[in-house]
């Protein structure tokens, strides 16, 4: 039941903290309130208070338009409250009721005037295909096939038109199945496609076509609405009374699930993802305490109760395959913990799955800071999983940027909790993502090797660095967009771009988009850097120059800049110029232009502007890097 005394106290505490100017602490209380009580009333309260704090918190801003064929208004505060609690200041515009075709097709519509970052197209089967939904039994087979065609064609037309008018992300709801097919049991007996569509088969076919339309466009994603409804139960999802009175088809207690599904898209789109999951060991990764219960006493295996922990470990392995690094932060004796991880027969995760480990008796916040710096990520890229509420609270207070996951009391619910964390969602997966753990293990070997060399240069020669510079290709587009969205440290301008925006830039004759790949004796780093430059009247301006943090300091940035300078000179440019736009995180790139002979031209509140005279100066290529230039074909 809501409004328990504790929950009401949180409201007062949050208000008191806001009044006293403690924005971060107030935000923690609001997030706690929201986690404890995710309802309509709380949403209104949480949103109104976050709105007072928005200027004082490091929130990502995101503009989301929702095109819909039903009353979605009550879901908006739920979505915005959840977004605030996830660090996103979400501005939402709802399209007019059932006006989505005009809004998509008309370039002057309020949709495009709103300049959204992302758009959700949420149309119900009953509105898009009323014939299939209401009158299926009356339809001849050709009429059913025609309905499937008509709806698929509409989707194709809308998605295509939207892509021409906007580079925003587009999320399309799939069509739901009726809870009670009009032919009853016969629906499941009748054919699919060749012998004629059943009612559910016809809707399934539209969804199949929709999948292909989505896959054919950049930055367009499918929200499997049918699966969402099924997951929560078709019969519980619907509220026919609200539909008939308020055009609100979803039951009060199910709306939260719709807003959470929307949030799962908004979090990766707004760049609020976690790159590393740091886990505790005792009573989190296995049941019991290894130091007391020993190898035979801890619970981990295929049978209850160990199965609950195995399910969690399976979920961790799935995240690792998605490019999320795993790390350990545990108060334990190192030898005991490693013995269990290496040799316990029930264990699914092994030491090689972890990119960093802090198994000691130190304060967890301190260990988390060390893990972040070892892995070269910000503290805000960490998620933290621990069964102990005290540890969680301490980490939350000491490091409010860390995504602390609340584990439910029953270990059988652990795996689902981790799988549901929006910060672990990804909308695209690059090759680098899938190999990330291996990349970091190679990195650890590199830094161990480095310690045996006297000079940096000797170490670089030993590394046998090879770099390959190439223009953007269709195969590298996803990675390039991802790097612009995720790279924070060695990023001179921090301009975030979607795949669509990158493709548009690369298509221009005056713009060059270059990528750099790197490998050394320990392995392949993959695609690690990007430059975007634009020529205008003999001046080549660097729009974007960024490098993945794991290769900073290997002089590859110098090699890349040297190539950019020499190729600009070859195109007849007399000057190379670029901005450094400081952020909270890109200090490692601050002196980059100065170190390479650029002159400071101007400085303002946004940043500093630097130029290099290409007729007088060149940039020396580091001799230990073997550089290959791939001229390639432009996209």
């Amino acid at each position, binding site marked *: 039941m809501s409004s328990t005394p504790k929950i009401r106290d949180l409201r007062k505490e949050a208000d008191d903290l806001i009044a006293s100017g403690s924005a971060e602490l107030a935000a923690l209380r609001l997030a706690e309130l929201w986690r404890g009580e995710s309802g309509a009333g709380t949403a209104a309260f949480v949103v109104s208070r976050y709105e007072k704090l928005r200027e004082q918190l490091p929130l990502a801003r995101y503009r989301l338009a929702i095109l819909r064929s039903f009353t979605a208004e009550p879901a908006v505060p739920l979505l915005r409250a959840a977004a605030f609690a996830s660090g996103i200041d979400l501005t939402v515009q709802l399209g007019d009721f059932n006006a989505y075709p005009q809004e998509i097709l008309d370039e002057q519509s309020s949709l495009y005037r709103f300049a959204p970052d992302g758009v959700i197209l949420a149309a119900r089967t009953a509105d898009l295909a009323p014939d299939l939904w209401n009158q299926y039994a009356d339809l001849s087979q050709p009429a059913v096939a025609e309905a499937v065609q008509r709806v698929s064609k509409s989707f194709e037309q809308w998605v295509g038109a939207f892509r021409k008018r906007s580079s925003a992300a587009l999320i399309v709801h799939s069509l739901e199945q009726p809870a009670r097919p009009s032919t009853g049991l016969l629906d499941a007996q009748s054919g699919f496609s060749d012998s004629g569509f059943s009612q559910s088969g016809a809707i399934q076919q539209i969804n199949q076509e929709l999948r292909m339309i989505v896959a054919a466009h950049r930055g367009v994603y499918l929200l499997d609405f049918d699966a969402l409804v099924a997951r929560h139960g078709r019969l519980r999802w619907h509220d026919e*009374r609200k539909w008939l*009175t308020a055009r609100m088809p979803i039951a009060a207690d199910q709306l939260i699930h719709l807003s959470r599904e929307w949030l799962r898209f908004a979090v990766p789109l707004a760049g609020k993802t976690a790159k590393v999951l740091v886990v505790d060991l005792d009573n989190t990764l296995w049941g019991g305490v290894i130091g007391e219960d020993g190898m035979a006493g801890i619970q981990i295996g295929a049978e209850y109760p160990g199965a609950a922990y195995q399910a969690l470990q399976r979920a961790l392995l799935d995240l690792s395959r998605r490019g999320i690094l795993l790390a350990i932060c545990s108060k334990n004796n190192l030898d005991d913990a490693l013995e269990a991880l290496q040799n316990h027969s029930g264990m699914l995760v092994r030491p090689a799955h972890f990119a960093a480990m802090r198994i000691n008796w130190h304060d967890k916040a301190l260990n988390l800071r060390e893990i972040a710096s070892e892995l070269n990520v910000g503290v805000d890229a960490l998620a933290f999983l621990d069964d102990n509420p005290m540890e969680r609270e301490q980490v939350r207070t000491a490091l409010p940027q860390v995504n602390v996951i609340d584990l439910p009391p029953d270990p059988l619910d652990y795996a689902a909790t981790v799988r549901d964390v929006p910060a672990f969602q990804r909308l695209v997966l690059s090759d680098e993502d899938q190999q990330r753990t291996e990349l970091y293990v190679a990195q650890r070997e590199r830094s161990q090797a480095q310690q045996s060399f006297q000079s940096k240069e000797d170490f670089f020669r030993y590394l046998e660095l090879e770099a390959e510079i190439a223009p953007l290709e269709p195969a590298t587009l996803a990675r390039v967009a991802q790097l612009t969205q995720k790279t924070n440290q060695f990023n001179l301008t921090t301009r975030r771009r979607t795949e669509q925006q990158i493709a548009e830039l690369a298509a221009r004759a005056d713009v060059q988009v270059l990528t750099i790949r790197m490998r050394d004796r320990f392995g392949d780093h993959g695609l690690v850097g990007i430059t975007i430059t634009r020529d205008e009247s003999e001046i080549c301006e660097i729009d974007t120059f960024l490098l993945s943090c794991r290769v900073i300091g290997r002089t590859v940035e110098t090699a890349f800049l040297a190539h950019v300078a020499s190729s600009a000179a070859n195109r007849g440019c007399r000057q190379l110029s670029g901005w450094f736009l400081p952020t909270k995180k890109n200090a490692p790139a601050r002196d980059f232009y100065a170190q390479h002979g650029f002159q400071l031209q101007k400085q303002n509140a946004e940043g500093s502007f630097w130029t290099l005279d290409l007729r007088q100066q060149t940039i020396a290529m580091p001799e230990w890097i073997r550089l290959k230039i791939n001229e390639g074909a432009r996209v």
Partner: protein
Amino acid sequence: MTPTIFEQVQGIASDLFGIPAGQITRESSTESIEAWDSTQHLNLVLALEETFSIQFSPEEMEQMRSIGSTVKLVENKLQNSPR
């Protein structure tokens, strides 16, 4: 101490309409509370249904014109429900 139904309705209305709970009385109505428009009315219905695990009929939704009548409706529903 468990809050009364009135206190719970008061809390929800305070959140939704953005006014302190103390200023919400049984007499507060769609006339006296400016923020109580049709959108917030739907939100109020949904919040009450969710909080008390009840469902209102379209006619009942129409009757909820003041906090007092709303509390009475909720109380009746909870008395008649098997839980």
